[in-house]
């Protein structure tokens, strides 16, 4: 397995934060960085997903275009399967809780009722990703973004200069018109508009590309570092003051000026980029001062899809545990400890399995 690095570390950090944020009411959510920031772990996760797409595209540099398309489409399909699998596990967890606690009311939890009340339409909606359970809405976004992966890879190879203007144009149009996908059979909108969130994904992809951050001059990097530090401070002050701009007082198109998550308003995107820039150098200090922490988060980040799936299901179990025990702080501590351990075990098992498979392949290969 590769050694701990900044990308894996921050990805692991984002996964852990998503786990905590997905247990609403848990006492530790007040320590989540979204309390001190205009953006949250969702932006960090999607940005780093863009970065990892860059690594995949780079690793296929010498391969023909068809291989690139095949590999990226396969990755999107894997994430799609993961979404279906965890959704069905989540439905089973909700059904089990309702059965064992003898409280059918729980069947209505997180929009799950349609599965039990109208399974015909709900199952079609689940497979089409048009029906999403509450808190199970990041992977559908990821599926859409990765489905665009082959197109992104092709544009990047044939006309790389087109990628940023295309992405920015789609972003501006979507924010200006509140462009989003609809849900069905329970009518509503996607929690994350893929047309807006693709922008931060593409920024992650481009900033780690050949003309990205690494190519900037030391002087530019220093200026960006201090500017991002300033932005981090301003964002933290705004978040701590609990200030949000009043949309009614803002000019049109309003989504450009609010801190909206669904459409990932510019303030959130800028702040997320500032956080990435300001804290990107922190990893080297964390490795020096807290090596176990660096190893643990990097291990989570290396196995992000498995860890994400486990985290989604563990956070749902955490919500049920909080419900049963009336949200006591002791239960919150237990939920966090089980979550930390569970995510670590899943990541460790994924790596153990891979190591085992590699060893077996090595033994079988002719000397």
């Amino acid at each position, binding site marked *: 397995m590769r050694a701990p690095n900044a990308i894996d570390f921050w990805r692991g950090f984002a996964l852990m934060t998503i786990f905590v944020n997905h247990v*609403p*009411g848990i006492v530790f959510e007040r320590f989540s960085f979204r309390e001190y920031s205009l953006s949250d772990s969702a932006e960090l996760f999607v940005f780093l997903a863009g970065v990892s797409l860059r690594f995949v595209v780079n690793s296929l540099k010498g391969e023909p275009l068809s291989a690139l398309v095949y590999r990226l489409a396969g990755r999107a399909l894997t994430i799609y399967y993961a979404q279906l699998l965890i959704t069905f596990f989540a439905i089973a967890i909700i059904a089990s809780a309702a059965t064992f*606690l*003898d*409280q*059918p*009311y*729980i*069947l*209505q*939890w*997180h*929009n799950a*009722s*349609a599965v039990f*009340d*109208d399974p015909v*339409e*709900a199952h079609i909606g689940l497979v089409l990703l048009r029906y*999403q*359970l*509450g*808190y199970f809405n990041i992977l559908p976004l990821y599926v859409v973004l990765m489905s665009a992966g082959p197109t992104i890879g092709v544009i990047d190879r044939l006309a790389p200069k087109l990628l940023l203007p295309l992405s920015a144009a789609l972003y501006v149009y979507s924010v200006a018109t*509140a462009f989003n996908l609809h849900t069905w*059979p*329970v*009518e*509503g*909108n996607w*929690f994350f508009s893929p047309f807006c969130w693709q922008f931060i994904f593409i920024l992650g992809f481009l900033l780690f590309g050949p003309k990205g951050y690494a190519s900037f001059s030391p002087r530019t990097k220093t200026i960006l570092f201090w500017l991002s530090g300033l932005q981090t401070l301003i964002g933290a002050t705004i978040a701590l003051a609990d200030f*949000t701009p*009043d*949309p*009614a007082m*803002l000019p049109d198109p*309003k*989504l450009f000026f*609010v801190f*909206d*998550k*669904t459409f990932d308003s510019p303030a959130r995107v800028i702040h997320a980029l500032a956080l990435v820039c300001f804290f990107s150098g922190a990893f080297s200090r964390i490795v020096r001062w807290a090596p176990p922490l660096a190893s643990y988060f990097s291990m989570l980040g290396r196995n992000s899809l498995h860890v994400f799936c486990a985290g989604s299901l563990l956070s749902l179990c955490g*919500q049920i545990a*909080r*419900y049963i025990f*009336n*949200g006591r702080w002791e239960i919150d501590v237990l939920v966090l400890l089980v979550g930390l351990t569970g995510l670590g075990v899943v990541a460790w098992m994924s790596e153990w399995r891979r190591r085992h498979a590699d060893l077996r392949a090595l033994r079988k290969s002719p000397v």
Partner: protein
Amino acid sequence: MIALLASALLLSALLISIPAGAQDADVKTASRCVVPTESLAAPAPLPHVAAALKQRDKLNILIIGSPVGVGRGPRKSYPVALESLLERAIAGVDVVILNRPVSGETVATSAERMRTEVALARPDLLIWQVGANDALARVPPGSYEEDLREGVRWAKDNGVDVLLVGFEANPWLHDDQEVLAVREATSRVARQENVLYLRRYDAMQFLARTRSRIEQGDEAFSADIGYDCMAEQVAQALAANMVLRRTRPVPADP
């Protein structure tokens, strides 16, 4: 005003007396959804709804909060059913419903989103479905009440009438103090801010008490009846309110 009153009365009559030509499923659902108005919602002013009906013959409604599930009854979805019920009753009025619920959302997060959605859509009426997720997530009732009150005040200050829709209940509901506290907090906010509050719990309790198993077929009283009844009860609450508040003041032009 007379036309409005007549329309409201017509809607009430429509809901109570089953419309001619309705589908069997509609008839069955409507018949089992009727609840005395006093069990449904206390009257409150809807000045912006009244002004919209008077000035534009168009009513813009924004739905936000927890989504309503899909019932086993009529195949019409909740917003479509509500829209057609209101349009059938208030002749000549174009009802436009913007459905923007997000599953799993607590009031704190939906209040944030509500501000943006209201500013974008500029509705006359906000239907805010509240409480269920907060109760399930054990959000402290105090902070729930504070977030809800702030959101309701903001909506009113920005020219939108508010209808709070509580969460339904069934005989197995885990009815502990937390759930009760959330319901009381919602009721308190509605009373103090003088906005409509559809007490779905009370409505469904009434139905549970009064409907026999025979009337409901072989099935026990279940939550899906709550979903099927949602559109009817929201429409009934609005209609009854229009009738009761016929002397309400009409706001000055903005």
